[in-house]
């Protein structure tokens, strides 16, 4: 065990304990510190009595806390969480598709991408099909918008994504958002479920995208 002092990592520990995902976008300096094996070991031994340890996604784009020992209550919590995740998959994936198409982007959002709700709204205002898709998405129980106004719907969608850690709003008074590493984590989950359940979803080969749509 390392006897390095955890004193400078107080705020980081608190964020990890609160269930946050730490990535290079959400907290660059904390992320860099977590990349250091010695720091992670020190935090792990500190967290041992709390039955937690530092874990990372497969591509090490995000760090978060995992259960150290999977007792029954931990498994119950994970099962509930898995249920929530599965329910949120479609709305999240549809949102990723929507943004990609609406903003005419080459690819799915990646960590560090900048998003402005105003831009999405402007693109949708004169596009009834896009509007309709936003409305359908915003009123999905995951996003839970009650409004029939486009701007309120877009706002609600961004608010929920921020609450779930997929987006970061660096300045509370500015409507500019950054995509966090949790988006990559989400895609890793999707890939895992696909492989595990042998779903007929292909991410290789030519132009299957059009065929599926």
């Amino acid at each position, binding site marked *: 065990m390392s006897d390095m002092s955890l004193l400078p990592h107080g705020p980081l520990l608190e964020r990890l304990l*609160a269930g946050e995902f730490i990535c290079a976008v959400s907290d660059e300096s904390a992320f860099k510190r977590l990349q250091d094996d010695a720091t992670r070991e020190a935090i792990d031994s500190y967290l041992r009595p709390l039955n937690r340890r530092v*874990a990372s996604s497969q591509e090490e784009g995000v760090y978060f806390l995992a259960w150290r020992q999977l007792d029954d209550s931990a498994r119950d919590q994970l099962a509930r969480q898995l249920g929530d995740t599965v329910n949120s998959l479609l709305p999240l994936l549809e949102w990723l598709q929507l943004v990609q198409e609406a903003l005419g982007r080459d690819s799915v959002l990646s960590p560090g991408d900048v998003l402005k709700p105003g831009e999405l709204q402007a693109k949708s205002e004169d596009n009834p099909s896009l509007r309709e898709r936003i409305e359908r998405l915003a009123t999905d129980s995951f996003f839970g918008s009650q409004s029939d106004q486009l701007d309120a719907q877009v706002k609600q969608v961004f608010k929920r994504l921020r609450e779930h850690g997929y987006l970061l709003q660096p300045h509370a008074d500015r409507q500019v958002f950054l995509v966090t590493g949790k988006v990559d984590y989400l895609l890793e989950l999707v890939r895992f479920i696909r492989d595990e359940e042998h779903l007929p979803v*292909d991410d290789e080969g030519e132009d299957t*995208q059009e065929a599926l749509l």
Partner: protein
Amino acid sequence: MNDAETPGLESRLITTGVERLALLGRHAEALMQGYANDQVPLEGLSHTALRKLLSARIVWRPDEQGGLKLTPKVRELIAEMVSDEARRHVNADVAEALELIRSLIQSYRDSSSRGDYWQQEQQLLRLRQAVDDMNGRFADAIDSLWQRLNSDFGFVSQLNDKVRENDRAQKQVVRLLDGLALIDFDELIELVGSDGTLRKVLISQLQQQLSQHYTSLREVQHRLIELMARFRHMQARSRLVSGMAAFLREHPGFTPGNYARRSDVPALFNHAAPLTAAGAVALDRAQDIPTLSALIKAIPTPLRAAQSVTSARPAEHVEDTLIAARQQALKDDVETFYLNVVDRAEQTPISALDYLNQSELQWPPEIWLFQVIAEHQGLPHSEQRAFHLHQQEERASAYNDVKLIRDVSLGLAV
């Protein structure tokens, strides 16, 4: 020999060249339309102008009925001049250039051995140009490749097109590298022999330039492969998102296995429940007291309007079922009292306390009276008017004007 003729030929070529290059400028707009669209518009072109353009091989007619088109060389020239990466042509044919260089060296050496210095000069000039052409071909190709790389293939908008363009560029790099490999300096050294001028043009200069090209091409290749990996990654993400979304739309009831119950829970799904590190004010350390009191002083006074007593409600206490049942029984008894008053033949009011005493009810008189009054007040206005409730009051004492209700009597209002 042809000493006299050749300069004449040169000057004729130059005159024609100048004339024909000027054609490009004179018809620039029409030609650029031909570049941007499929055909060069005929409007505005006189018969003579058209004939001149055709004989300069700036434009041509692929067939008699077809329109006027730019010749490939002109199209390439324009693409090169405007760095139009979508159409820029990379010519990696080194073999032909080498063949030309070989024969020029031979001619140069022949002239040299004949002592024909003028001819030798001309051959050297053409040889220099041939070497420059070959060199320039690589330089242009590398420039074009860098342009495409630096713009992330921005001249095509779709990711799939970018992947294809990247693939094409990688093939070009391979052809260019193959071309470089064809240049055999041992052979050139042998061909050049001891001629210092040729050695300078063909060996020292060219070798240096080609080794630079080689380095650049390797770098370009490396970057193209990296970029391709990124494109493929982006493609895979897009496909994963759209494919999974389509699958979930088609299978609304889809539930994956319960990974949380597996003996080996997948690491990705093991995200521990959040814990809040809560803290509260503690007064057990003397040195904290000044800080805490400063904090308390700093708390802004809440801007709350004073609550008036009338609007304050009594705190609701939880009624247990026993109390609720007693309350209901009292209410029922009072209702029976009211019905009694209605049913009675006499219209004289009846005293509530008398009724309580006569019936065998066990309610304390005070509570009984309170409920009788409350029942009257709880009636709708129309029904209230049907009853007459008289309160027998008396002063609390000689010195106290508070009225106490001793009894109430209830009768029908007539």
